[in-house]
């Protein structure tokens, strides 16, 4: 009140507390990983194996060779999409458990479009069209719970879970009843003249399924980041997620934000369908999305709902999943599922606790 505005302005600190941010972003997950690694050691020891040997094998089978690494990237791609989808919803305070069906519907949309396009359609046109169809497929599935929530207050968790059954059953009926190649549960292959198998476009990863969809995932993550933290829509979306009453007071239509957030959450998961359908198999197969939607929740949780965190978490979970195959000879593959569970629990339990310790340590340091 006493200082002149000009003088006071000079004192204003605009330094970002980078160090604090970095500490809080990195240290808690690392602690969680440490906890998980210790649990993993105990598990491996209980099978009478040496943890060092098993971990070495795990690394060799995943990051140690081009094929393994490609497979990790392939698996990470789908998880990145579903993880981004879940985290986008969570930023608006909505829990989208419908990743499974949104992913499947997206893949179905991409396959149908690929099958419908005439041979000779240029790649530059065919790929975007298939992606739009995938996004539409997921978006429609996401829009249903969004509409029911906004209009009637139906809880999105219930609706998205139940919709998983409905949509997957519908898709199964389409495939089994109308579109399948005899003796299989998948559609015919998309003609290579329309769209080549995306994994074939690059030979870097020696026949693994890693493909162009990975770059799409990174682009989507960048777009989500920009929207959430730079766009007005993201400002409003996060406001609704953090404090809906304050958002309403600030003239933000909470219902409209819910609608947008869940629909686009579905769109993001839907686009993920191209990874399997266009990138790997070149057809839609019943049940391809199984598990990836739900694992997306874990990816979003471990990635702390930040696009960069989600990408890292997706890569990590893909490594565990691919690593399970590599260490099969020593310990059962299911051990990796257990380890995944341990990681999720460790993150959920240790992150708030570690952050509390960090903050109190900082306060003592400052005092």
């Amino acid at each position, binding site marked *: 009140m006493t200082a002149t*505005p000009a003088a006071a302005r000079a004192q*204003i*600190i*605009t330094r970002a507390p980078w160090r604090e941010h970095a500490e809080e972003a990195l240290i808690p997950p690392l602690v969680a990983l440490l906890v998980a690694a210790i649990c993993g050691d105990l598990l491996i020891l209980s099978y009478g194996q040496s943890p060092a040997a098993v971990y070495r094998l795990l690394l060799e089978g995943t990051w140690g060779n081009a094929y393994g690494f490609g497979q990790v990237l392939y698996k990470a791609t789908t998880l990145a999409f579903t993880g981004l989808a879940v985290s986008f919803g969570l930023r608006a305070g909505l829990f989208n458990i419908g990743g499974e069906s949104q992913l499947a519907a997206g893949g179905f949309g991409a396959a149908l479009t690929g099958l419908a396009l005439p041979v000779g359609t240029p790649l530059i046109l065919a790929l975007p069209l298939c992606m739009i169809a995938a996004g539409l497929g997921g978006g429609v599935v996401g829009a249903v719970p969004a509409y029911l929530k906004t209009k009637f207050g139906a809880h999105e968790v219930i609706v998205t879970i139940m919709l998983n059954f409905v949509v997957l059953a519908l898709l199964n009926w389409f495939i089994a009843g109308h579109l399948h190649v005899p003796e299989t549960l998948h559609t015919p292959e998309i003609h290579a003249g329309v769209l080549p198998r995306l994994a074939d476009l690059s030979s870097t990863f020696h026949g693994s399924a890693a493909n162009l969809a990975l770059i799409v995932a990174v682009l989507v993550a960048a777009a989500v980041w920009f929207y959430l933290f730079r766009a*007005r829509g993201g400002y*409003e979306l996060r406001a609704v997620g*953090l404090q809906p009453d304050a958002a*309403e*007071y600030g*003239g933000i239509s909470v219902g409209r934000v819910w609608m947008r957030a869940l629909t686009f959450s579905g769109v993001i998961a839907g686009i993920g369908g191209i990874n399997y359908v266009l990138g790997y198999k070149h057809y839609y197969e019943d049940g391809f999305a199984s598990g990836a939607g739900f694992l997306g929740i874990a990816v979003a949780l471990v990635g702390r709902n930040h696009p960069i965190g989600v990408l890292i978490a997706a890569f990590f979970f893909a490594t565990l999943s691919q690593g399970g195959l590599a260490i099969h000879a020593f310990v059962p593959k299911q051990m990796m599922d257990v380890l995944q569970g341990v990681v999720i629990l460790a993150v959920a339990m240790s992150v708030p606790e570690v952050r509390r310790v960090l903050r109190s340590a900082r306060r003592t340091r400052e005092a």
Partner: protein
Amino acid sequence: MSEAIKLERIGKAFGDVVALNGASLEVQSGEIHALVGENGAGKSTLMKVLGGLIKPDEGRVDVNGRDVTGWSTSDAIAAGIGIVHQHFMLVPTLTVAENLVLGCEPKSRAGVLDHRRAAEDVRKLSAGTGLAIEPERLIADLSVGEAQRVEILKVLFRGARILVLDEPTAVLSPPEVRELWAVLRRLRDQGDTIILITHRLDEVVDLSDTITVMRAGKTVARIKTADTTPAEIARLMVGREVSLSAGKRVQPLNQSAPANSDQGLVVRNVSVVGSRGIRVVDDVSFSVKPGEILGIAGVEGNGQTELIEAIAGLRSVAAGQILVDGVEITRHSVAKRHDAGLSHIPEDRHRRGLILEYTVADNLILGVQKSFARNGVLDNDRILANASEDISSFDIRPPNPILEARALSGGNQQKIVVAREMGRQFSALLASQPTRGVDVGAIEFIHQQLLDARASGKAILLVSAELNEVLALSDRIAVMYRGKFAGVMSSSDATEEILGELMIGARKGNAA
């Protein structure tokens, strides 16, 4: 008559906040005893000490001549103390009888709940007390008054002979209140002891035998109802110490009457229906001229919150019109009301006014985010420049725009809200509890901001639980009581005593 309850010099602090400081209460058995005081005087805390929910830091609790200091809730229930809470604690999907027997269910030989016996027990109790209720009805189907009867029956069913009722009439309609009174008198005549917590004076005078007045965690008086007047109780409740020198009042602005009488804020016959179906704002009309502050005084819970939220667009109105500068905004969205020139300092800055996880800079654009974006992308440089300006002109500390709002003190958080709402283009301002929980220096600063806005021709509607704030800032003062304006007067005619009596319904005013 013997003493049923004797609480002596009870002290209790929550962290730095002292809730009770030498509070005492003596209740004879077989009387209706009113415990009165303003919000935050410590009435509910004292009853929680009695009920065993809170252990006192100091003092002594005697029940029926036995020292029971620091006992537990189950001890209290066993000793026959029953607390009827302000908020109902019933299971809506169960029947009346099932709710009553919950925890002590009569079982048949097979260990299954004996519905018939439960219903019979309830019917017997219901007939004995005059609390008429059908045992088989679902709680969800009951009216508020009926649900309350069930609450009272519930504590009686557990054998309570000392009943504590916390604000029992807050949600009741007048006929329901009369029924409740009849029941309470009957229980007293049967020998039960009743403690009635309230801040409504008419109820106290109507019903009680003895009154204990609390203020700021202390017991200030214990009087026989027959020996006192509503005016005296009001004075005791409000307290003489917080009197205000006349010199601090605002001087009426010497302005020529505006050519267009539509200017400012106009509210016509507005009614708001609350969540329980009661008219919480009942046909209220007023106008605030440019350059004027209309203060609304009143005990909280008499419709002020709902009135402000209705004007702000956060609650729908059942009837009536709201106009800002002649433009009707009754059905406008919050955003369109902003555009029409309405600004709003909300009463709860943590729930409404701020997003605590957002930075100071981001909070300073809440509600005006549109003007800080181009093609949907936020302009961070302008957001920071805006923040720097507000931080220096409102002296927000620490002066760091990228700090989370959570890290700031209450006073500085409130300054963020005030800076934002005063910084935008507006012609009418709703200022709801603008200085609640704010330190003295910030209070003075915020008051000066309000007076400056008044001087520059803004129409300001001020709602405050602080009588001296209303008296110090307002040109005119309205008192809200049970959803209506109990009186409107020029601030020069108002005294704390007159307002205090209007606030608790002890005086009929001219509802102009």
